[in-house]
């Protein structure tokens, strides 16, 4: 018997469970690196098709739907996992490795899921596995942020499950296909979309991301950048391509993330807001992905390619900031500065990520972002085009200028921080990721070849290059003039998570003051017979003498009387 298909997600999930049992440290590290490599080989050998169809009750579960859309996401998940595992190799907490691999595996599971039930299962595993990447940080802030994080995802999961149940009830099918043609015909589609966009961090449902990622462990945050939001982009592209509201949400998201990023003082929180912004480009691309139009196909290609590139460069950026946090213990701009002398390699590798995310020519952001922007132009959506281009400037501003200036330059290193030497594997992980960013930027054909639709897009035309370069020049000049204004501010900027934190406190206050006061008032004055109630209550409690014989007397008396009455009644009727 030949095995026609092996689920790469399950390789990671079940493979991860063995990590704690390997005693030899070298062997353990080798195994940890090998896991995603095996998954990659598995992917390379895969043919398109539908595998592992399991009958469950009267439904058919499809664990492996391999097609052009799912395989792109699977590739980048596995490639990112390889880079990230190198970066995380020095860790000694086995269980952090386990949860990271289970998280990545669940991401793959969600991508290959051909039905909604399988998708839901992996969706939940993803939420729980990633929770531990936050909690392993061990700080109080991390505990609290993790709690809020899981509450968001549980709420999203419940909404998604509700949508799935209603969808199954109304259509009798659990197949996960495009819902675009049924959009607006039932509550279930809204619920499913809502569940999806919570994971995609679409404002105002994004606070979990900016709240939790900066509190995660150094390596955990790197993993988290890749899987949750991008699997959400995948399910949106699969389920809701061409739904117009997504186009607007995505464009607003792209700008929203940038604006809030500018206000941040914590390096990793700034980067987290840029995830919101960048995922905005993808969501927007999905929203423009109208089936059958050339522009729609280009938009879907753009969203997919951008997800691919984004995972790489965002991981690289988080890795860079993670190294800073690892060696100094700080990530706030007000506590950092002047580190270039101590860690130049980290700086330059970080800058490759920064150029990529800004969409510099020759870096991978350029070859993917321009596709989405071009699609908006082809669809004649000038407002969308403007929002997306505007967000590009802001991105360059924050990530390539503000953050490096506050961390690596901007005067002397504060005396209070001690700089250790960064672990070699972290730099190696960054190096590999950076190399991929540059290679895909210079030579995008391998990426273009695996996109869902045939690509006729040429990124390196004079027009694209000149347009991008102009944007950067005009962003750089004002920054340089106002560079002193862009120091961080020490206070926390509350975003829409204010709506979650504050009402939490209000809820308690409402219960403790208003409700309890009302209840006491109610009890003392408003009950019609307060004295009677009190006397009755005392009488009821006075039966409880605690003596068994006394209780038995009551009970037997009641039983005897009722049974006698019942017998008489039975004979009479």
């Amino acid at each position, binding site marked *: 018997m030949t095995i026609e298909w092996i689920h790469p997600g399950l390789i990671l999930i079940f493979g991860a469970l063995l990590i704690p049992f390997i005693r030899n440290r070298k062997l353990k590290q080798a195994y940890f690196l090998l896991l995603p490599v095996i998954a990659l080989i598995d992917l390379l050998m895969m043919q398109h098709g539908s595998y592992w169809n399991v009958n469950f009750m009267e439904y058919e579960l499809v664990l492996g739907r391999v097609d052009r859309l799912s395989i792109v996401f699977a590739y980048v998940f596995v490639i990112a996992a390889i880079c990230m595992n190198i970066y995380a190799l020095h860790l000694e907490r086995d269980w952090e490795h386990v949860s990271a691999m289970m998280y990545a595996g669940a991401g793959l599971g969600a991508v290959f899921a051909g039905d909604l039930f399988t998708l839901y299962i992996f969706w939940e595993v993803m939420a729980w596995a990633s929770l531990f990447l936050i909690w392993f940080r061990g700080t109080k802030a991390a505990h609290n942020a993790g709690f809020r994080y899981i509450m968001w995802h549980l709420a999203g999961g419940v909404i998604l499950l509700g949508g799935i*149940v209603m969808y199954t*009830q109304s259509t009798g099918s659990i197949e996960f296909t495009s819902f675009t043609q049924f959009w607006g015909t039932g509550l279930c589609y809204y619920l499913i979309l809502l569940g999806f966009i919570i994971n995609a961090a679409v404002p105002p449902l994004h606070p979990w991301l900016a709240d939790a990622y900066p509190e995660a462990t150094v390596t955990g945050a790197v993993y988290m950048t890749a899987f949750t939001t991008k699997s959400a982009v995948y399910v949106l592209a699969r389920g809701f391509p061409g739904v117009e509201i997504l186009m607007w949400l995505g464009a607003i998201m792209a700008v929203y993330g940038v604006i809030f990023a500018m206000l941040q003082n914590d390096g990793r929180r700034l980067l987290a807001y840029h995830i919101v912004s960048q995922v905005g480009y993808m969501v927007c691309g999905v929203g423009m992905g109208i089936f059958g139009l050339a522009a729609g196909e280009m938009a879907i290609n753009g969203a997919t390619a951008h997800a691919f590139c984004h995972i790489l460069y965002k991981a690289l950026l988080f890795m860079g900031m993670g190294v800073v946090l690892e060696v100094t213990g700080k990530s706030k701009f007000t506590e950092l500065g002047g580190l270039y002398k101590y860690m130049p390699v980290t700086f330059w590798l970080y800058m490759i990520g920064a150029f990529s995310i800004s969409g510099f020519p020759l870096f991978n952001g350029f070859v993917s972002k321009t596709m989405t922007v071009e699609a908006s132009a082809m669809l004649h959506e000038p407002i969308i085009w403007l929002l997306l281009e505007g967000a590009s400037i802001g991105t360059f501003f924050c990530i390539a200028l503000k953050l490096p200036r506050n961390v690596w330059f901007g005067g002397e290193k504060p005396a209070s921080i001690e700089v250790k030497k960064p672990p070699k594997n972290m730099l190696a992980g960054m190096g590999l990721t950076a190399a991929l960013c540059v290679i895909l930027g210079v030579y995008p054909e391998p990426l273009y070849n695996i996109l869902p639709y045939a690509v006729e897009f040429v990124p390196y035309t004079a027009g694209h290059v000149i347009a991008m370069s102009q944007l950067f020049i005009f962003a750089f000049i004002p920054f340089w003039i106002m560079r002193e204004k862009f120091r961080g501010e020490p206070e926390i900027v509350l975003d829409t998570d204010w709506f979650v934190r504050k009402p939490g406190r209000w*809820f308690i206050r409402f219960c403790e003051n208003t409700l309890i006061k009302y209840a006491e008032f109610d009890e003392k004055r408003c009950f019609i017979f307060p004295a009677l109630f009190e006397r009755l209550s*005392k009488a009821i409690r006075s039966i409880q003498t*605690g003596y068994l014989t006394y209780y038995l007397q009551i009970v037997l008396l009641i039983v005897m009387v009722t049974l006698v009455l019942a017998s008489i009644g039975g004979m009479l009727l």
Partner: protein
Amino acid sequence: MNDLMLMLAAIVVIVLGSIVSVRTPKAGLYGAILALIIAFLACDLPQYGVFIFAIAILNLASLGALKSKIQGIDYGLVGLMGVVTMYIFNTADLSLVLASLVLVSTPTYLLVMIREGGVDVEVGIKYITFMVIATVLFLIGAVILATEIKSLYILGYVTLVIGLALEVGIAPLHEWVPDIFARADPVPVSIIASMAKVVPFVAAMRILYSTSTELTAVVTVFTAVLAAVSMFIGNIGALTSKEAARVLGYSTVANMGYVLSCMVAVINPEFLGIALAGGLLLLFSNAAGKIGFLNAIKGENAYSPLMYLLAFSFLGVPPLLGFWGKLFVAIALLKVGYLWLAAILVINAAISIPYYLRLAKVLGGDWHINFTNIIAVAVVIFVMVTIIPPTWFVEAIETLIPLLGLTGIGG
């Protein structure tokens, strides 16, 4: 018979787990979980089974907070209760239904005595005395009803309902409830207040439904009065009680009154489905709330928003689980013509506001990551699943109504 074989396999797994657990206590836990999974697979009604499964897992988890002398075996006992509770709708055989009642009741005799590092015999004697009387009355009532002799019908009905009242603690036969709640360890009490309540009600409902005659409409008034008395005594008794555990005891008395009121629907099978669904949802919300509150009494530092949410579920604030239970029961009562009982149910929901809020205030505190809060979060998620209206649950129960009748009756 395939499902019966699976159930027996589940019980065998529990027994094996319990035997091994004498050496390694965790084996009992794994055995119980495995058995529950097997039982869930065999359960005819997954929509019902999933609730029982969740309650059983919560009960097993909360046992982790208790260092008992029989650790390992206690997991097995809870697992057995869960397995039997899931089985109750599978069978149509009267003798198996009665056997289920005994199988759910007996493990609690042992569980109630457990406390930290020892046993509390006095609590055990009080509880077992009541339970034995209750079970005997229930069985006698069932047997009398099963003979289908017309002149004995009312006697059988009343005997069975009194047995049920003693078993679950319905006033005025509730004397054991506040005492046991205040005296025994909160963890076993939470099991008695949650898992042990489902089977007696379902068994009674099925027997009363299968044996109903033209006299049922007359004698049902007895059940309705008993339910009303229980609601009032439970809620008023709780109002001035000081100890949190005792308040919960009275709250159980009141809640059992709510559930008992759904029994009147046997007079009109058309609305039996919604009544049974409402009663079951009330039992589930009562179970969740009791597990959450009693664990907060056991451990400390429960997070106050969670406690308030549990209180809200008890009060019947939409869209929490408790709301739907009360709503469906009230609808069923109105449909079968018991307007006064529905009104009393609503009045009692209002009376109970002060003490539930006070309870939440006393037990709540700041957020800490601890065992109590993990259980509390799980329980709150449980009561919040009904954000999506549980009409699916009613539909599932309604498909069951034609199969509710029992064989082995008459002759």
